[in-house]
């Protein structure tokens, strides 16, 4: 098992390198001169050129990328053009807000969608099933920022029961978490429903009933656990895009997280910050994928035997 995890961690490295290379490459195309941006229009050409040299901007692309990776491994992701602070510091300050938001959303998705999906499957074609399918369909057809705006309109401006913007209390995270969860709720409800429908047709479910197990016992103990693999996969994907996908929701609710920082950085061509934040998102997504893969093996003993066989 340890060997498997080790192998999976090693496999993450080329993916992360690949992503950072692509991002680095794309952002290399950014127009404008960062040195000129920093020093302003009044600076002389000589001083701009000196700064370019100092920042390594005149090196060939591959050298720049190599230096970047080398420094990044030491924890140095460069300095923000705007504030002059190390990029890592900027990220650190903003991470807690983004993390709270993503965790809140994934908790909502998990504890709302899985029960709804199960009930939908068990009571297929019932009123509740229809309602949840329509709800899921609406949520997939709605941009998350508009969902958020509509909730601000209703809960913050109309009913005045929840704050619209800011981060001071847990209440501030309620609306943004729900807005961020929207699409995930839809995806996970659908996946839970179809996966459960598949499982409850299986012979072993009938066996469990023939043993005299109660209906809830049959559904939870024998059904859900077998239906869990695809559900966990989509939960992982959703959590990944939540961790990195704060850009839109953080902008709507004015949350000073990594996402809104990235949008600012893009608007101001603050390239080191952009590269770092997108690379961090990619790493977060890879880690979640790894966790999902490890969970698989714990849930499904057949996979464990496969790994053992492959390992020996």
């Amino acid at each position, binding site marked *: 098992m340890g060997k498997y995890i080790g192998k999976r961690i090693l496999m993450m490295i080329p993916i992360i390198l690949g992503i950072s290379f692509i991002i680095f490459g794309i*952002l290399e195309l950014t127009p404008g001169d960062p040195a000129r941006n920093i020093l302003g229009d009044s600076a002389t050409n000589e001083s701009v050129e000196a700064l370019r040299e100092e920042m390594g901007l005149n090196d060939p692309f591959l050298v720049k990328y190599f230096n970047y990776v080398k420094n990044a491994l030491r924890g140095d992701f460069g300095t923000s053009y705007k504030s002059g602070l190390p990029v890592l510091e900027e990220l650190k300050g903003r991470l807690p807000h983004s993390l709270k938001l993503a965790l809140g959303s994934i908790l909502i998705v998990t504890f709302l969608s899985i029960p709804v999906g199960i009930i939908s499957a068990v009571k297929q074609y019932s009123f509740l099933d229809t309602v949840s399918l329509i709800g899921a369909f609406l949520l*997939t057809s709605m941009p998350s920022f508009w969902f958020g705006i509509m909730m601000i309109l209703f809960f913050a401006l109309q009913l005045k029961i929840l704050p619209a913007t800011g981060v001071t209390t847990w209440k501030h995270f309620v609306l943004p978490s729900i807005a961020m969860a929207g699409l995930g709720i839809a995806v996970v409800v659908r996946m839970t429903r179809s996966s459960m429908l598949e499982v409850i047709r299986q012979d072993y479910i009938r066996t469990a009933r023939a043993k005299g197990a109660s209906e809830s016992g049959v559904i939870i103990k024998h059904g859900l656990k077998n239906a869990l693999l695809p559900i966990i996969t989509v939960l992982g994907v959703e959590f990944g895009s939540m961790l990195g996908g704060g850009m839109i929701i953080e902008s709507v609710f004015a949350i000073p997280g990594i996402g809104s920082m990235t949008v600012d950085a893009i608007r101001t061509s603050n390239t080191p910050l952009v590269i770092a934040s997108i690379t961090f998102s990619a790493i977060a997504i890879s880690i979640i994928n790894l966790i999902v893969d490890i969970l698989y093996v714990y849930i499904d003993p057949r996979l464990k035997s496969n790994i053992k066989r492959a390992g020996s």
Partner: protein
Amino acid sequence: MMNVYEGTKETGRRKTVKRKSQLASIWTRYKKSQLAMAGLFLLILLIVIAIVAPLLANYEQDAIKQNMPIRLQSPSREHIFGTDHYGRDVFARIIFGARISLSVGLASVFISSILGVLIGSIAGYYGGKIDNLLMRLMDVLLALPSIFLAITIVAALGPGLINLLIAISISYVPRFSRIVRSSILSIKNQEFIEAARSCGTRDRRIILKHIIPNAIGPIIVEATLSIARAIIHVSSLSFLGLGIKPPMPEWGSMLAEGKSYMGSHQYLVIIPGIAIVMSVMALNLIGDGLRDALDPRLKN
């Protein structure tokens, strides 16, 4: 000679009859779903509105030009969707916005599906090193949610219509190439391909004449759903100020502008949102309907 000629004509006709009947049966299955038909009508309605927009309103006068004396007027008979903070007619901006959203969605998916089909079929058909290289690249890109890739590209190129189009097109390529590759792998070794190859048919012809037609179903479904996704992504990026620049009447940027006035003028954030949701819903309904019609086995 006569006989030979007659023979080819006969098989030729049979082929078209067969293809027609296949399309007809897909259409029959599609028609059965009321939701799918509703989606189709909704989309046709939106397209018609987008096409006749210049007849309903004047682009320069109503949608672009600032008219401060009539700013922030609630919906009335004169301005059925009201006016925005520059006194522009919201209805005019919505219908011209439909042109932008639908055409950017269509164009970007058109580009990405062609690139995706190209990459996917080359990888799937030739296999080996090319396949490995292309697919590892796609895997890396797929590790990021497509909106990320789009944002990165926009970050490099800067905002604007064309840059947005490029960004969205590129970011959807990996999904298409995956789908095409896997359907090609499942078709590649079937006997009719072997037969074509043994007749000396060239690779390009085999791919175009035999493989693509058989993989077209999933591509069309993915394309329909991708247009829906593209409309959401275009509006999201424009909302962030990274997409289409004002004063162009894009739904997402209308929302971003209207957000400042949402406390007193709710219609400014409700109406553009409904426009987005309606077009996305129409395309999602069509996509789901097509999926069921193309592969009845998938339906539970």
